[in-house]
C-alpha cells in the first residue's frame, strides 16, 4: 500500500493528533491473528490478521456475506474460531465465554428485553456484575443522561420509537464500561435524517468516553463519517485498512475503489513512463493516451492496469480545456439534478460512460449543458489512481 505521508499533503479530514496505528511498538487492544472460520464448506473468514488500537472508532465495512459480522461475533464470543487467535489486551480469549468478556455489543435488532422497562434493561448487565443497588441506580441515570433518555426510564421498549430504542440499546451496552463496544449495523433501522444525526452523536459519545468502538456496517457513508480507520472486507479477507481519506483517495484495489463511493474505471495498458518514473502514460483502446501519477514508481511498460477517477475530480466542459493533461471527448448522455450536485453521465466516443459530478455552487448557470451536447471530460494527472489489482 502506498505510504500517504510522503510529503506534507494529506488526504481526507483526519484527527491529526490521533494515529496510534502509526506509532511504532504500540501494542493493539484487539488483535486478530491468522483467524479463519469455516461454516461447513464455506470459508467465512480466511486467514485474517487485523490490529485495532485502544480508543479507536473502527469500522468493518463490506458487502453482506463478507464475514464482517462473523468477525465481530468472534470478539463477542458467539462464534468459535476454526484457526488462529483473538487477543484482547494481549490475552488469548478463545476459552472465555461471552458472559465473562469485557466486551459489550449493541445488536442490530437492539434486542431490548420486552418484559423489562428502560431502566431495568440498562441495569441488567450491572445486576449480573453484582453491583450495589445505589451504584446501579446512579450508573443507570448517568447512562440515560448520556443518551438523553432520562425521562423514559419507566417506559417499556414497545412504547418507544426506533430512534429511542437505539439509544436505550446503546446505554445498555455502555453501562458496564466495556473495553470494547461492538456495534452491529447500529444505524441500519433508522431513517436517513435520524441516521446522520445519530452518526455524529455516536462520535461525540465515543470521544467523551474514550471507549474503543468497533462498528460493522455495509453502509460506506456511515463508515466514512464515523470511523478513525476502516477495514474493507471481501470474501472473508481484509482488502485494505486505512483512514477514510486514504480508503477513498488511495484505494488499494479496484474492489475498494468501486465499493466505497462512485468511481470511473478505465481499463488500459502502460505505454510510457513507468519503471522508476513518478508518472505513467496509459493507452486507451481508442488510441487516446492518459497521463497519470504513479507515486509508487513500480509500473512497467505493458502492465495491464485500471485507471480510477472519482466523478467529482473530473470536469465537464463545452470547449476543449487548454493545458489539461487528460481530455476525453464525448456527448452528454444523462443529467441528474440532485440539488446540491448535478450528475452528468457522459458517453465517450469509444462507448464508455463516465460519471462526472459538479457542485452547484451558484443558483444560476449561464447556458447550462444539455442532453446530447458535445463535451470534453478532463482530469488532472494526480486526480486519478492507477490500480493493478
Amino acid at each position: 500500500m502506498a505510504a500517504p505521508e510522503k510529503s506534507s499533503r494529506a488526504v481526507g479530514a483526519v484527527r491529526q493528533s490521533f494515529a496510534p496505528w502509526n506509532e511504532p511498538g504500540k501494542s493493539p487492544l484487539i488483535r486478530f491473528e491468522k483467524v479463519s472460520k469455516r461454516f461447513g464448506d464455506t470459508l467465512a473468514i480466511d486467514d485474517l490478521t487485523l490490529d485495532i488500537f485502544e480508543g479507536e472508532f473502527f469500522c468493518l465495512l463490506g458487502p453482506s456475506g463478507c464475514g464482517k459480522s462473523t468477525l465481530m461475533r468472534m470478539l463477542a464470543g458467539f462464534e468459535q474460531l476454526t484457526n488462529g487467535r483473538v487477543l484482547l489486551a494481549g490475552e488469548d480469549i478463545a476459552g472465555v465465554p461471552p458472559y465473562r468478556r469485557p466486551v459489550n455489543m449493541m445488536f442490530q435488532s437492539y434486542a431490548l428485553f420486552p418484559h423489562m422497562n428502560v431502566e431495568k434493561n440498562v441495569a441488567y448487565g450491572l445486576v449480573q456484575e453484582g453491583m450495589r443497588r445505589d451504584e446501579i441506580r446512579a450508573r443507570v441515570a448517568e447512562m440515560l443522561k448520556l443518551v438523553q433518555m432520562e425521562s423514559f426510564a419507566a417506559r417499556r421498549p414497545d412504547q418507544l420509537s426506533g430512534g429511542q430504542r437505539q439509544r436505550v440499546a446503546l446505554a445498555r451496552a455502555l453501562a458496564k464500561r466495556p473495553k470494547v463496544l461492538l456495534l452491529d449495523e447500529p444505524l441500519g433501522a433508522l431513517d436517513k435524517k435520524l441516521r446522520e444525526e445519530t452518526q455524529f452523536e455516536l462520535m461525540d459519545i465515543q470521544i467523551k468516553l474514550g471507549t474503543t468502538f468497533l462498528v460493522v456496517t455495509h453502509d460506506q457513508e456511515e463508515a466514512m463519517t464515523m470511523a478513525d480507520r476502516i477495514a474493507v472486507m471481501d470474501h472473508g479477507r481484509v482488502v485494505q485498512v486505512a483512514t477514510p481519506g486514504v480508503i477513498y483517495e488511495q484505494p488499494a484495489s479496484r474492489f475498494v475503489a468501486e465499493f466505497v463511493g462512485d468511481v470511473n474505471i478505465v481499463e488500459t495498458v502502460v505505454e510510457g513512463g513507468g519503471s522508476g518514473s513518478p508518472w505513467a502514460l496509459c493507452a486507451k483502446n481508442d488510441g487516446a493516451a492518459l497521463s497519470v501519477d504513479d507515486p509508487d514508481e513500480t509500473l512497467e511498460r505493458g502492465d495491464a492496469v485500471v485507471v480510477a477517477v472519482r466523478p467529482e475530480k473530473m470536469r465537464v466542459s463545452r470547449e476543449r480545456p487548454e493545458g489539461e493533461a487528460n481530455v476525453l471527448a464525448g456527448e452528454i448522455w444523462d443529467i441528474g439534478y440532485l440539488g446540491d450536485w448535478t450528475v452528468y453521465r457522459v458517453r465517450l466516443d469509444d462507448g464508455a460512460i463516465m460519471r462526472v459530478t459538479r457542485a452547484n455552487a451558484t443558483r444560476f448557470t449561464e447556458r447550462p449543458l444539455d442532453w446530447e451536447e458535445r463535451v470534453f471530460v478532463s482530469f488532472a494527472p494526480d486526480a486519478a489512481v492507477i490500480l493493478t489489482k
Partner: protein
Amino acid sequence: MRRGLSFFNVTALVFGFAFLYLPILLLMIYSFNESRLVTVWGGFSTRWYGELLRNEQLMAAAWVTLRVAFVTAIVATVLGTMAAIALTRYGRFRGRALFTGLVYAPMVMPEVITGLSLLLLFVAIDVGRGYWTIVIAHTTFSMCFVTVVVQSRLVTFDRALEEAALDLGAPPWKVFFTVTLPLIAPAILAGFLLAFTLSMDDLVIASFASGPGATTLPMRIYSQVRLGVTPEINAASTILIALVTVAVIVAALVTKRSVMRAERGG
C-alpha cells in the same frame, strides 16, 4: 362486494351449531330440572347440585380427577417444554426426526391403543394400578400438546435477546430464567391449561390405566350412566363443561396476548 348472510348460510350455521351444541345445551338445562325424571321438565331448581355435593362417590371421583389433572399438567408442562426447547434449539442433532415423531405420535395414536399399551406395560412391570398409573398415562399423551404450544412460541423467539443477556454477563442458566422463561411463560401457561383439561376429561386412557380405588369423574359418570341417567350426572357434567370451557378460553387468551406483545415489541 359485501356478502350478506344468505338463507343457505344461515340454515347451515344453525344446523351446524345445533348439531354440535344442542345435546350439551339440553344436558345443561336439565341439570336445573326439579324433576327426578330426566326427560320431564318439572321446574327450575338447583337441587341436583346440592345432591351432587352430598354424593360421596361422585365427589371422591371429582377429587381424584382434579389431583390427577393437576399433577399431570405440571409434569407434562415441564417435560413438554424441555422437549420443545430441544427440538427448536438443538437444530441438527442425530435422530432429530425420530425424536420429533416420537413426541408427536401420541397426538394421532388411537386412545384405545395408548391405553392398552400402557396397561400391558403396567402389568408387565407389575405396578399396582391406581392414582399414579393414571398420572403417568395422562402425562404421556398430554405432553405433546404442551410441546406443540411452546414450540410455536419458540420459533418466533428472537435469539438475539438471549445473546444480549449473555453478552451483558449473565451465565446461560440465568439467561434462561431471566429472559427466556418470562418471555415464553404465556405459552407454557397455555400448555399447562391444555394438559389440565385433556387429563380432566379423558375416559378411555384412564379406564385402562386405573385400578381399584382410583376412579376419575368421567369414569364414574360413564359407569353410572349405564344404570340410567340421573340429574346429578347432568349437574356434574355441567360443572365439568364449565371448567373445561374456562380453561380453554383462558389458554387461548393468554396465547393471543403473548403473540400480540411479541409482534409489538422486539
